[in-house]
């Protein structure tokens, strides 16, 4: 390119700045569109819980863990703790919105469900909440993806996605993983 005078240099830089501006603008618009129009937002419910009494809380006591249908909504509650999940397997119906709620009584954990976009940190002191619709049936892995101590590698659970017709909660609305 012509760079004989300083004006040439500045002109070329201004042209490039326009390209940069358009690129950055396009990226920002795409993200804005996903957030505002498609409601693709990260899990951000600032909802606190005392980590030292999780097992005594109304929501995360042992009897209330796992999947339950509440007012037509499927809600799955899991406690992530060094070095396992409670429960180790949860069942969810395919093609229905599922609300997953997690908390930790000890240290930082995190989960993802393989083959889906379900992903959240599980931070002691907070309830992490993710909404998702599982399209494919079968067993999915739900490992802990954040370092939580020497047993971290052994910490994983199963999400069992069953066809909607096979999803049969009991009278109390609860559904359990059956032995395969």
């Amino acid at each position, binding site marked *: 390119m012509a760079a004989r005078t300083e004006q040439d240099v500045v002109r070329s830089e201004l042209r490039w700045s326009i390209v940069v501006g358009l690129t950055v603008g396009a990226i920002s618009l795409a993200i804005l569109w996903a957030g505002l129009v498609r409601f693709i937002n990260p899990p951000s419910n600032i909802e606190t819980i005392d980590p030292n009494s999780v097992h005594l809380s109304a929501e995360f006591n042992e009897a209330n863990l796992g999947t339950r249908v509440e007012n037509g909504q499927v809600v799955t509650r899991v406690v992530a703790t060094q070095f396992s999940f409670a429960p180790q397997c949860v069942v969810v119906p395919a093609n229905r919105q599922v609300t997953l709620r997690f908390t930790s009584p000890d240290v930082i954990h995190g989960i993802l469900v393989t083959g889906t976009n379900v992903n959240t940190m599980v931070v002691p002191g907070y309830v992490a909440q993710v909404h998702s619709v599982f399209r494919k049936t079968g067993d999915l*892995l739900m490992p802990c993806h954040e370092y939580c101590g020497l047993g971290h590698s052994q910490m994983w659970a199963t999400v069992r996605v069953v066809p909607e017709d096979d999803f049969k909660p009991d009278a109390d609305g609860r559904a359990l993983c059956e032995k395969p």
Partner: protein
Amino acid sequence: MRSLDRLTLAHLWLSFAAFAIACVFGLWQMLARSPWPAPFFTPSNYFLSVTAHGSIMAYVLPTFFIMGFGYFTAERALDRRLPLRRLAWAGFGIGIFGVAMAVATILSGRASVLYTFYPPLTGSVWFYIGLVLVVAASWIWCAIMIVAMRDWKRANPGAPVPLAMFATVANAIMWLWTTAGVGTELVFQIIPAALGWTDSVDVGLSRTLFSWTLHAIVYFWLFPAYIAFYTMAPKAAGGRLYSDTMGRVSFVLFLLYSLPVGMHHLFMDPEHSTGFKFLQMTLTVLVTVPTLFTIFTISASMEIAGRLRGGKGLFGWIGALPWERPMVLATGLAFFMLWFGGGGGLINMSYGMNAMVHNTSWVTAHFHLIFGGTVVIMYFAIAYEIWPHVAGSPANSPARQRLQLWLWAIGMMVMTIPWHWLGLLGQWRRVAQFDYTNPLIAQWGPWVLVSVFGGALLLASALLFVWNLAQAHRRPASAVDAFSFARALHEHDRAPRVLNGFGVWNVLVAVLMLAAYGFPIAQFLIDDRPAALVHRTSGRAP
């Protein structure tokens, strides 16, 4: 050998020796996670190794490299004696003492908390104190850089500070801002917990403070690579820097936009609202601006060099560049890796899309490619470039230097392409081993083995690098021309005041940080957030 060169050499050798050791740990970790057996494998050895690899690569390699290169730059670019030399040596002493303390604690197995700490997990307090000493040493360096520039400006009123030094001071100032986050976390949360003075930690606050540091620290590491792009590569190619002003603008933008963006590491965290996550995401998009400016300016500078060497046509100048020179080759390879690493980074920072890749191997691949690839390959090139001047004799032959650079770039691509793919398949991070009898995990096997091969190439390259540098000390000193940085195409004897100092930019950083982090940090102090009990990884009382 001048005494300043001994100072530079001491820093660089500490940096590179630690780096080579950390590469051995890295390859062993890859074996542990692969379908093949790894010798000495236990989960505790694995997390000891991850802590050592991460702490060395994040805190020792870049910090001491930047300090050593900064001292070199201050004296060569400003063409005057470095002030406060004794203090600089004292800083080195504190730093090496801190490194020894931290590394010994890691190797004893009492600090397997990884370099990102994860409170309420706590390791032995000596690990944290060692790291605080390393940071303290780097603050001494920051002060010396600022003083050196101030002295030079007093002696040369109105003259533009040479670009290499302007950028170095921008980095020093950015680093002072950067370390405020992790420093506060260590001093007020982690060290009291490790000492047993407190029994619980506000985890939301500690994660937020660490995120303050976590993005800018990467730009601290990256600055030397960009300094080499602007002030060394054009000269090595036989041309001139296209625009000195664009360099200044880019370095100022790095100072501004590296800091108020760290919350993009916390997109998946429950303790922050979408509003502040979105704000910091928007600021993160702006970090691409100085990089895109740099790609333009350096490409234009290289084009000038290529055309001066007889390159014709739209792309003919590329072939005409002196690729046999290590600095030119490294710049080309760094740019190649920057396209992949930068592209992956855009996905990471994309707020919603982050859910797809958060804490998967995709992220590990991203930062290995952008830091280990683009940045560290420029550390190699800088070392080769300045070695004749600081060690008195060139590093090994240019052919060996090129072999080492190629091995590194190929190894990095062979390692990180499978990692990106495995991340998309859902391979999660920070585990010591995988159960390859699980059908889902079994299909990852071949990809993992390819990446192990890439890791082996990287280790070979790292060892060759150290060997290449060591050769200089076995040869008698040879006469070399005085070192000089690249000159700009159109040089000025004055620079606009805003682009010749940092006063106004510091005010802007403060405003941006207040906007981005003011409430997100204050919320933990306003609300009474539940704290988590301290968990000691060593299982021992403090």
